[in-house]
């Protein structure tokens, strides 16, 4: 039971005998991919709307108020329709194939990474023992897409943006990976579902960040590295609209441009969810503990767990927006300094400290 695809396990007994196995697998794959695509679309819609509202309210404005009625909730939809109906422009000097491929690679990487993310303790598309590695690997793959977009655009601004992205991601992959080792030391598994289940003690508040002070510090470092990884301010140098026009997005318009944004918001949610899984309890919260106690392991518990994850991911996105509208953009040398000179050593100290703490705890108990 604890392997493969939860959907497959759900649907396999329902399939009639004459249906071949490959058809069942194909159906399950299509359903799963549709769910992930729907999630990415929803996150992008809600994310752009929330970004506009949060930025507006931080600046004491209202933001979108008219489209759709209540606080302009349909603004993102209207924007999407506008972007789809725009002309698909490819610059004359651009490398057409790479130019068209780049957004797909970005989005495909995020899709793949999202597939590794369980949506509930018993609803996942893959019970992957190295789940967090898969997520980190695929979210790093987005860099290839950005560099490709920058190179194919045949514009110096795009290339500058792409180079910055490459430099930045190389610098911040290190603290990102290292800080993740601290909670992994404590929990002892790379599997997201198992990591979440390990945090269910103390009435659903046995979060790894509270079990070990070094994990709490490394969660902050991890979050900063995530900001750089997802190209969010104050590390949005690849885009840097005041310096590089729009960085690697300069030559993109219409639906291709919006694909980059879908990728950005999906990656934001994904990385917030990973932060939640390995530092702040994953599915576990007092609510899911209550649901577990009163309704057992059934559908209610799964639903509460899913909602907990959504709330935690949304809170992560909110923190990213809050930071974006608080801090000015760093200079590229400051970004490099922060990555190599500050975050990397601190991450190493955190891992060392977490290991020593765990060893002492083990020796005492």
């Amino acid at each position, binding site marked *: 039971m604890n392997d493969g695809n939860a959907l497959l396990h759900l649907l396999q007994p329902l399939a009639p005998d004459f249906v071949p196995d490959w058809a069942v697998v194909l159906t399950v794959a299509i359903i799963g991919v549709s769910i992930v695509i729907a999630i990415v679309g929803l996150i992008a819609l809600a994310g752009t709307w929330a970004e506009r509202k949060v930025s507006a309210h931080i600046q004491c404005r209202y933001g979108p108020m008219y489209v759709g009625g209540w606080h302009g909730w349909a603004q993102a939809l209207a924007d999407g329709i506008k972007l789809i109906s725009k002309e698909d422009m490819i610059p004359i000097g651009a490398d057409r194939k790479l130019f068209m491929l780049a957004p797909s690679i970005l989005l495909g990487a995020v899709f793949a990474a999202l597939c590794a993310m369980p949506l509930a303790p018993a609803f996942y598309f893959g019970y992957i023992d190295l789940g967090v590695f898969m997520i980190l690997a695929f979210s790093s793959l987005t860099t290839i897409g950005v560099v490709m977009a920058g190179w194919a655009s045949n514009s110096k601004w795009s290339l500058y943006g792409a180079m910055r992205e490459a430099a930045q991601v190389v610098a911040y992959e290190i603290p990102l990976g290292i800080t993740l080792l601290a909670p992994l030391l404590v929990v002892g598994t790379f599997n997201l579902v198992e990591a979440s289940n390990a945090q269910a003690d103390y009435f659903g508040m046995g979060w790894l960040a509270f079990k070990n002070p070094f994990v709490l510090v490394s969660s902050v470092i991890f979050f900063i590295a995530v900001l750089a990884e997802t190209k969010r301010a104050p590390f949005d140098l690849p885009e840097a609209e005041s310096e590089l026009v729009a960085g690697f997005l300069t030559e993109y318009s219409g639906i291709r441009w919006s694909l980059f944004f879908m990728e950005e918001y999906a990656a934001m949610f994904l990385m917030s969810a990973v932060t939640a899984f390995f530092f702040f309890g994953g599915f576990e919260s007092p609510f899911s503990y209550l649901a577990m106690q009163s309704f057992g392991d059934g559908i209610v518990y799964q639903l509460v767990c899913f909602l907990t994850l959504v709330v935690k991911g949304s809170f992560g996105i909110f923190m990213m927006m809050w*930071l974006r509208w*608080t801090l000015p953009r760093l200079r590229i040398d400051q970004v490099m300094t922060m990555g190599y000179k500050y975050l990397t050593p*601190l991450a190493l100290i955190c891992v060392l400290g977490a290991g020593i703490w765990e060893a002492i705890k083990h020796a005492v108990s």
Partner: protein
Amino acid sequence: MVKANPVRRYIKNIWDSVYSTAVGMRITGKYLMQKPITVQYPDERLPIPDRYRGIHYLEQEKCINCLACARACPIDCIEMDAIRHGKELEWVLFTVDYQKCMFCELCVYPCPKDCIHMGTDFAFTVFDRSELVLDLLSYKGMSREARIRKKEAEEKKAAKEAAKAAKAAAAAETAAAEAEPESADDEEQEG
């Protein structure tokens, strides 16, 4: 300046960045919780100051077509014309060309009857530049026939009022006070 210990500087840098980020986020968080200070413009508007200089507002019934405002205008954007019928005026035009007008308020001061004012309306968007020449007249005034008709109506009304007053006077004999306010005629003919 004493050269700081590099280790202390390193730790201070970390502390500074954490502290300044926390302060900044507290400030932006405060603004996030605050009610927005902007208003949804076409639906609600902020009050406009009394001395605001917007589109002119003409009290046409007071105007005597003396051309003082047109003469005062430094860029000659006011044009006015009226035909006199005794004390009454039959207006031909009173236009302000808002392509030229610079809202200097110089037309307001020379007015002997205090009938031209700077209004509060500022949103003046049109599809054609010719529409920027705005006619301030709210009515065209009296033609000869209309003037006669109005005079008759006024006489009738005055007679009615006189009868009414006489009746009231008769009814209230005890009341000694019998005040008949003289109606001031604003539209004196000037020589």
